[in-house]
């Protein structure tokens, strides 16, 4: 078994008196898709923010492939291979859909600071961006400003940008929230595709139990910022504590 | 050639509060032409045409409109400008086109200084005149201690330097020089420093104020009651809109460039009357200056044999002529017009809106030792 691609050690963040992430230590391996569940406010998004660098921890450290990245800026972490899609859609609203994705491809290739070439002349970048749009089923709207897309398409674009970064570690924060059942599969297919590549680590925050069950290799449960359970999906879902805090006592899962 | 003779007025007419002063110059200039030509607006049978151009108080604009006046409108002489900076930028254009630029009303000494050129004449006063006259009005002697208050830039520093130079040899001492930043609004701290410097001195103690554009330092000084330390205030005269603030210092003495009741001569009488009739108010600094410029031009045109620039220059060098301020004379060396200043004493009359700088005596040009900026004769 390969060593962990990502692990956090005693990760903690406090906002005033409130501890949003509390002493979380856990590790993730390539080829594994972990779903992070927990009730609203459990600290899932906050934990993501710590790993991708939007927030600085009060205590604890974060390692990527054994390297300490706790002090790095978000951009440096992205370069190091940690990619992130946001819970609340977070795009470049007035740029075209294609450009949104192209920026992500270009960032990966490190062509950003160049002023010696015309952006439009970087055909490989463009072609790759177009390919990502194709697989996210966004090709038809490639020339639209991102702001003009309906919510569902914006979510897809969010994911397409993450895919375009081709990180080692994918972090999805409720990628299908607010998407209709006929559209969500587009995203789930994409995630399933990524999962096939055994060099990638995938983290997914998700509430929809069907999605969790369909994709998860492992489930981590957060509650009040603490890690309360970690293991195989069936085992974790069977735990009393999980049934109690997450699904509600005596849950009839079909209702979700 | 029977076309009109063209003269350009290059002034700031928009873009700054100073535009009010340009209007005074224009009025004075037109009145001057009228007076000098007896109303015909002709000289040697040719009509005088005045072209007005707006510098917008921007030196680059000023240069282009001046060049346009010389190059495209073919004016014979240009007159201007309002602020020293704009005028500095205009000087080389005169040399480039080899035409005369008559500086009015900008003040700075440097306009006739080393970087100026022989095409430049100047009818307006300069800072040295202001400060030397001011020094004379103080009647300096060994018993006098002065602390000065000026703004921290070229205008203020040059003025104080000229003032100190005028005091040399009189025995008076300058005990402190305070320079405040431009646009200072609160003078409390400076006043404390001035008082601290002066209060323990023996003899006459005077604070000299030489501030052009920042609030009302004199008012602030008066409020702080300098008399409790036996300190007097002295400052130069000012334009009419500012004179109301002088009501707080009755009896103060200083020197002024022009106040309509001070010069006693025919031209000034005519100017005051006509101005009152036409504009409903007495003439001010820049009206008098504008008129002096017009009178100089007409006199030069009348006396010169032809109107080639070189002829005009040699005519004007050393030329003396009558103005609302009495006789003026272009000094041959640097083309600065030497002129009288007026020692005044403030009188407050409740029926007059402003404080009256009542004439004490006229300070003749001979009494002042105005440094020569450059020598055009070399």
């Amino acid at each position, binding site marked *: 078994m390969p060593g962990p691609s990502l692990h956090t050690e005693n990760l903690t963040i406090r906002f005033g008196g409130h501890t949003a992430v509390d002493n979380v230590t856990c590790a993730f391996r390539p080829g594994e898709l972990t779903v992070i569940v927990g009730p609203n406010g459990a600290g899932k998004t906050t934990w993501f923010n710590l790993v991708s660098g939007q927030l600085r921890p009060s205590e604890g450290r974060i390692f990527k492939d054994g390297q300490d990245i706790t002090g790095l800026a978000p951009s440096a972490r992205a370069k190091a291979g940690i990619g992130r899609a946001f819970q609340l859609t977070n795009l470049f609203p007035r740029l075209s859909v294609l450009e949104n994705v192209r920026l992500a491809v270009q960032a990966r290739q490190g062509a950003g600071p*160049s002023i010696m070439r015309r952006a439009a002349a970087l055909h490989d970048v463009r072609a790759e961006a177009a390919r990502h749009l194709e697989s996210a089923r966004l090709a038809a709207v490639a020339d639209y400003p991102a702001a003009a897309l309906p919510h569902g398409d914006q979510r897809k674009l969010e994911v397409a940008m993450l895919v375009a970064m081709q990180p080692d570690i994918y972090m999805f924060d409720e990628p299908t929230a607010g998407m209709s059942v006929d559209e969500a599969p587009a995203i789930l297919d994409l995630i399933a595709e990524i999962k096939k590549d055994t060099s990638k680590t995938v983290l997914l925050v998700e509430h929809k139990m069907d999605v969790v069950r369909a994709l998860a290799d492992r489930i981590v449960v957060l509650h009040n910022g603490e890690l309360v359970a970690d293991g195989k999906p069936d085992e974790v879902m069977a735990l009393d504590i999980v049934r109690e805090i997450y699904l509600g006592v005596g849950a009839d899962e079909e209702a979700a | 050639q029977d076309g009109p003779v063209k003269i350009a007025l290059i002034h700031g007419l*928009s873009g700054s509060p100073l535009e009010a002063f340009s209007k005074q110059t224009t009025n004075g200039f037109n009145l001057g032409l009228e007076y000098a030509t007896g109303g015909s607006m002709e000289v040697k049978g040719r009509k005088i045409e005045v072209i007005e151009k707006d510098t*917008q108080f921007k*030196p680059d604009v000023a240069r282009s409109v001046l060049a346009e006046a010389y190059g495209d409108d073919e004016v014979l002489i240009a007159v201007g400008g309002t602020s020293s900076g704009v005028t500095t*930028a205009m*000087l080389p254009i005169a040399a480039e086109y080899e035409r005369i630029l008559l500086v009015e009303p900008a003040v700075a000494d440097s306009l006739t200084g080393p970087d100026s050129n022989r095409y430049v004449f100047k009818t307006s006063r300069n800072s040295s005149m202001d400060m030397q006259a001011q020094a004379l009005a103080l009647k300096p002697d060994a018993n006098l201690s002065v602390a000065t208050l000026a703004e921290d830039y070229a205008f203020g520093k040059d003025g104080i330097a000229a003032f100190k130079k005028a005091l040399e040899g009189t025995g008076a001492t300058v005990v402190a020089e305070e320079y405040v930043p431009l646009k200072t609004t609160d003078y409390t701290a400076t006043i404390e420093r001035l008082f601290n410097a002066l209060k323990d001195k023996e003899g006459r103690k005077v604070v000299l104020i030489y501030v052009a554009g920042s609030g009302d330092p004199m008012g602030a000084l008066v409020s702080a009651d300098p008399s409790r330390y036996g300190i007097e205030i002295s400052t130069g005269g000012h334009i009419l809109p500012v004179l109301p603030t002088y009501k707080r210092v009755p009896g103060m003495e200083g020197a002024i460039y022009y106040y309509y009741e001070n010069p006693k001569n025919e031209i000034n009488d005519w100017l005051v009357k006509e101005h009152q009739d036409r504009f409903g108010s007495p003439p001010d600094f820049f009206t008098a200056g504008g008129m002096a410029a017009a009178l100089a031009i007409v006199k030069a045109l009348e006396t010169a044999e032809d109107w080639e620039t070189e002829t005009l220059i040699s005519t004007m060098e050393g030329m003396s002529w009558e103005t609302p301020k009495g006789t003026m004379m272009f000094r041959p060396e640097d083309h600065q017009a030497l002129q009288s200043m007026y020692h005044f004493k403030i009188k407050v009359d409740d029926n007059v809106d402003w404080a009256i700088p009542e004439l004490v005596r006229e300070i003749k040009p001979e009494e002042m030792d105005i440094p020569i900026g450059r020598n055009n004769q070399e």
Partner: protein
Amino acid sequence: MSDQSISDLASAPARPRRIPVGRLAVYAIALAIGLCLAFAPFLFPDVRAQEVAARICVFIVLVASYDLLIGYTGIVSFAHTMFFGLGAYGTSMALKSWGPGWDAIIIGGGAGVVAAFVLAVLIGMLSLRVKAIFFAMVTLAAASVMMVLANQLSDFTGGEDGFTYQVPRLFSPAFKLLTDADGKTLRFFDVAINGKIAAYYFVFVGSFLLFLFMMRIVASPMGTVLQAIRENELRAEAIGYRVVGYRTAIFCISAVIAALAGVLRAVWLKYVGPEVVLSFAIMIDILLMVVIGGMGTLIGAVIGVVLMSLAQFYLKDLMEVAAEATAGVPLLPELLNPDRWLLWLGVLFILLVYFFPAGIAGTLMKKGNH
């Protein structure tokens, strides 16, 4: 177009590409302006027009470099004239003290440019992290400190009056650039080919090259990153762009270009003073120009500068005519008093921001796109 919904469009498999009429129009206008400027000395031989043309050239560079900040990256800075001034003062102080030579222009101008660069790095690193409005205030403060310095160090800078100086002989009107058989200045279309022409082409070519350089920047990958930062800083950082680095870089590039524009201005003007290169009034002019032209288009700078300069130099004349024409009507001539031209400029500007927030180029370019 308007009776189609977005989803109709989205489902249409291959949309026929529309001809971007507006974009073409903008390029056509810019090209026409460029040609006019290239032949300005022959097309408009009168003195004022030449001054205006030279000013337009320099300001196109200045405004376009400002557009890199405000339009492309969303950085609001009030320090642009400070950099412009550094270039101009560097050049002119050297020309003044060493006499008119190319060495003075190169070393003095170079020193000004380097100073601008160093200052930009400092300001950028110190304060590009803080909120936009704070950055604007810091630059405003820095610019006013520079203005105060220029006034107070009058021994070097000539204070608020500024100073005049000579430029290399090649650029003086007396220099005969081309001579005919008798050794007299050659005339071409009735225009004397003298040093003035040389000076103009120095300014024109310099500006042209700088402008091309900026066009290259915005078309490069870096240009897209800048726009991304303007749109969503956080996200740009999250996909791997160091936002502070990019901002500082563009701030420096823009400062250096502004300083170079200052060098050109100083060579042309043969006078320098706070009013022509440092004052807040110029900063406002730049802002007006960039907005009138259209932010984030670069080419808009060309249109904005030309319109605004024409207004500054000729609106007054126009109003004079208007005031005379309406002389009989009550009130109107008073309002149309040429000295109140700034009032109308202000009103026009408000209307423009109101109705054409994208500026002229921006609005036109949208025409014919979806």
